[in-house]
């Protein structure tokens, strides 16, 4: 096993989590390639996550980074009541594994939990599940070219957003 490579992947995932928790949106977006797909499947009648965002229902799906940029734009605008004030979050990541590697592509799976606090509602809850990141080597750098989020809570607590999972 390539310990150094794995630790670089883990470092990137931790950095992403830190940017989300600290609401450093432009730095977060810069971790993603322009063609990065972002997908949170819904759950189907058989208790399985949906398998295809083009033909089945999802919770969130963007085929490229422009969708994530729209989300950030909405959060920052101050005009979305659900995003203002933003919720406090704490991402915890563990069980990080390198599951596949090709020339410039790496697949990394991990387990996550996000503790969330809505201050004005005195409400604390957690989302949890699995990440499957697709990473791309660009020279010496590693960037995120895809992120699939399996949200194991199948009933969303009022809101879901890119920084809550």
């Amino acid at each position: 096993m390539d310990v150094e490579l794995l630790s670089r992947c883990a470092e990137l995932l931790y950095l992403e989590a830190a940017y989300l928790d600290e609401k450093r949106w432009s730095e977060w977006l810069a971790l993603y390639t322009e063609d990065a797909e972002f997908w949170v499947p819904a759950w189907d009648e058989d208790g399985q996550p949906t398998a295809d965002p083009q033909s089945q229902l999802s919770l969130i799906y963007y085929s490229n980074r422009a969708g994530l940029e729209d989300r950030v734009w909405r959060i920052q605008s101050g005009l979305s009541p659900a995003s203002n004030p933003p919720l406090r979050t704490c991402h915890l990541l563990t069980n990080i594994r390198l599951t596949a590697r090709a020339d410039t592509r790496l697949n990394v799976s991990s387990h996550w939990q996000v503790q969330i606090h809505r201050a004005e509602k005195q409400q604390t809850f957690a989302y949890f599940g699995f990440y499957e990141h697709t990473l791309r080597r660009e020279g010496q750098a590693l960037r995120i070219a895809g992120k699939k989020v399996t949200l194991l809570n199948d009933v969303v607590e009022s809101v879901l957003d890119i920084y809550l999972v």
Partner: protein
Amino acid sequence: MAQPGDFRARRVAGRPVILVRSDDGQVRVLLNTCTHRGALVCRTQSGNARSFQCAYHAWTFNSRGELVGVPGEDAYSLSFDRKDFALAQPRVDSYRGFVFVNFTPEGESLSDYLAGAKEFLDLVCDQSEVGMEVVPGAQLYSMRANWKLLVENSFDGYHGLPTHQRYFQFLVETGGLDMTERLPGRALALGNGHAVIEYEPPWGRLVAQWNPVFGETKKAEIETVYAKLEAKFGAEWARRVSRTSRNLLIFPNLIINDLMAVTIRTFFPVSPDYMEVSAWALEPQDESAEDRAIRLDNFLTFLGPGGFATPDDVEMLESCQKGFANREVMWSDISRGMNRAEPVPTDELQMRAFWRRWHDLLTLRPTKAEAQRAA
């Protein structure tokens, strides 16, 4: 649910039921409660089954709900008759593929109950020649608000711009949407508490109103769809199917919003200030892969707990629920449009229709039809 034995286990009004196509081809709803000691006889959400066997003592019921297996049956007295232990079945009927149950053994028919809402279900279903289908996957979410607030919100044309300012700005900037015009349309009470707003939306519809968002290449295709609808249904019905959107309430808690994408939404109160919501996407069975992807993209952009609009609605409804803590403010005002002979979608006639029926039920006042029957 095309094949005999196909089933879905669901909760309806908080009760566990099984919707099943029985071996005789008929669709039945069976109460998912073992007639022996009460456990769920079906503990999977969906599948195909010849029979349902309770996991507790293995009593077995066929797809018509009849008791067909009792381990150690000789231990029961001679008066024990399997026929007395069939799974209970509420009344069930369907309209355009929407299956409804009624837990009271007697009362009006589904057709009478739906009243004027049938016309609007027809408008939704006539979008496809071969029929509509629910896309796999459900969006499940909860809200810390009273369920009736979501009824109001689901067809509230007045809140669109203030609550969803960001979303509409997004639509304007991503192409083709003119939000400066008021939406031409109407609000209607449909009887029995059902109500609708119907309007000419500024967004495009794959069935069948072209919009720059779709690109020039789809223009001819969308015109063909429109021409087919016109040939089949005539100009007026084709216009309404294609060029109007509708937010429909089937009293008390079924919403069908036919925007660019169609969502089916139902919700149940868990407590006075908390509800659980289920939402699905309804799409033409025969649509192309490309059209399905476009509709789903529109659905997810606007709707659901991870969309651009729904979270803001949820936030405002939770905000109302918090505001209600001040009991000195005793009333919500929904008088908007009472000065107009023909209320429009940004008025509140549709909410008054819901609340009047709600009030009648709480005060046990009979509907017109019930009063006529009694007379």
